[in-house]
């Protein structure tokens, strides 16, 4: 469990995090979202005990990160941003070192090492120096280090940054697989990741908490939530179709795509538009390629929330 309470961090005059509070329980995967420089990494560094908070507190499994730093760090697996390691070491030497520092010994040590090497597919590169590895393998070595002692709490700062789509998929699968019983926080600015792995998402900007919800609830904040998008067969029908949709009850606006014969009817809160739109277009004999109900656009919610915060003085 992670508890962050009224946390703030200043670097000189710069306020990196301000009055941030949240809790993450076992079994949750929290997505930590925000624009670059929003205070995500700073918050994670405080939780990991790398930097001390200027105010407020953070605790890992009940251990305050300032008063009981060693107990907190033992309960925590941490992947720092960019997955740093010692470039001249091999993954075998590196993981062996982490195991030694974390006090793993004997049969248990061997089993844990085998487990992470197997899970992250490190076997083919175990004896090559880390500096010669691809970005994907470097990231995996960093992840292996974080989960080596099977910690109850994982804090991963941009675990999929710089990976190719296949590697991203693998890392997300790995995170989901480990999730039961663990508390996981991942920071990211890739919004599809929130869908793919997170059970909850918080959005921060300028060090302040702006939203703390399930991904679906965040999407519901989108003005596209409940909207219906129609892709027409012929661009000639666009004006007529737009007029038809605009007359429907519950439609607040109709947006046109700039480069495709596509219309989006935005829904008033609570309005169910799919059937009325389908019926109206059929009555008007508008030929369709596709008709789609939108759940909401996370990137749009993200932009709306964070740009509003940036605009504030």
């Amino acid at each position, binding site marked *: 469990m992670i508890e962050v309470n009224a946390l703030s961090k200043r670097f000189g005059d710069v306020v990196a995090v301000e009055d941030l509070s949240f809790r993450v329980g076992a079994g949750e995967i929290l997505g930590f979202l925000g624009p670059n420089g929003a205070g995500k990494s700073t918050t994670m560094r405080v939780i990991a005990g790398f930097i001390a908070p200027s105010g407020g507190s953070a605790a890992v499994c009940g251990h305050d990160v300032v008063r009981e730093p060693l107990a907190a*760090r033992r309960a925590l697996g941490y992947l*720092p941003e960019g997955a*740093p390691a*010692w*470039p001249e070491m091999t993954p075998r030497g590196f993981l062996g070192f*982490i195991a030694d*520092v974390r006090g793993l010994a004997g049969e248990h040590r061997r089993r844990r090492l085998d487990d992470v090497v197997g899970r992250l597919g490190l076997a083919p590169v175990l004896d090559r120096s880390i500096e010669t590895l691809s970005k994907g393998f470097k990231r995996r070595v960093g992840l292996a280090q974080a989960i080596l002692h099977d910690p109850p709490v994982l804090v991963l700062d941009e675990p999929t940054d710089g990976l190719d789509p296949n590697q991203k998929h693998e890392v997300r699968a790995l995170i989901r697989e480990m999730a039961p019983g663990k508390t996981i926080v991942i920071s990211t600015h890739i919004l599809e990741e929130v869908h793919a792995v997170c059970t909850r998402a918080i959005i921060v900007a300028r060090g302040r908490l702006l939203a703390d919800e399930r991904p679906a609830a965040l999407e519901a904040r989108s003005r596209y939530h409940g909207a219906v998008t129609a892709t027409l067969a012929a661009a000639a029908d666009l004006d007529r179709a737009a007029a038809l949709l605009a007359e429907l009850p519950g439609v607040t606006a109709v947006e046109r795509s700039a480069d495709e014969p596509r219309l989006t009817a935005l829904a008033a809160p609570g309005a169910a538009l799919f059937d009325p739109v389908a019926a109206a277009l059929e009555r008007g004999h508008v030929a369709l390629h596709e008709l789609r109900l939108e759940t909401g656009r996370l990137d749009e919610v993200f932009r709306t929330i964070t740009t509003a915060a940036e605009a504030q003085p």
Partner: protein
Amino acid sequence: MTGLGAVYRRELASYFATPLAYVFIVIFLLLAGAFTFWLGGFYERGQADLAPFFNFHPWLYLFLVPAVAMRLWAEERRSGSIELLLTLPLRPATAVAAKFLAAWTFVAIALALTFPIWITVNYLGAPDNGAIVAGYLGSLAMAGGFLAIGSCLSAATRSQVIAFILTVVVCFVLLLAGYPLVLDAFRGWAPPALVDAVASLSLLTHFQAISKGVLDLRDCLYFAMTIGAWLYATTLVLELRKAD
């Protein structure tokens, strides 16, 4: 203390994983030999002792030891591995001590490889081997002092070049603290007690006492306290500016 051993072993191995260790050892041995035989007049003196060998160590260390020390923390900071190291369940003091001990062991290995000169002097005459052992210990203690200073200054910056230059300057001032070059800067304005205090900080005076074969408790304490104080300062500097 499992962490201390693990960090120590990792650090020591890392010296030998790069050409740095071999370059350092070769240059150290070449320069030590050159100073002893040409500048020190090892043969011409006609005395069976290692004074010409040890006398040049402070000057040799002045440039070589900061080269070892400069990477201690600056490199970790630059590559970001400092964040990994200091979020492991280790006290910062443990990490500082382990890294220092590994660097010191490395210099000790280089120093130990000068053993042929000890064999030579025993072959040529009958030296006071007790004095030679004291000389080696004094030399090692001084290297430890330089390393501790370098450790602290390396923790203060992410640039190895800055760490190197600062360490050379601080070591140079401390070496000569008992000599007019440094003392004259204080004599004009400082009370005599302060001038004496500065003079007693001189690494060279303490080193020369030991290298003559006199293992005085005061000199040993001096080196122990120098190392301890600078390592403590390293820990403080790290705590203050870990994330910069």
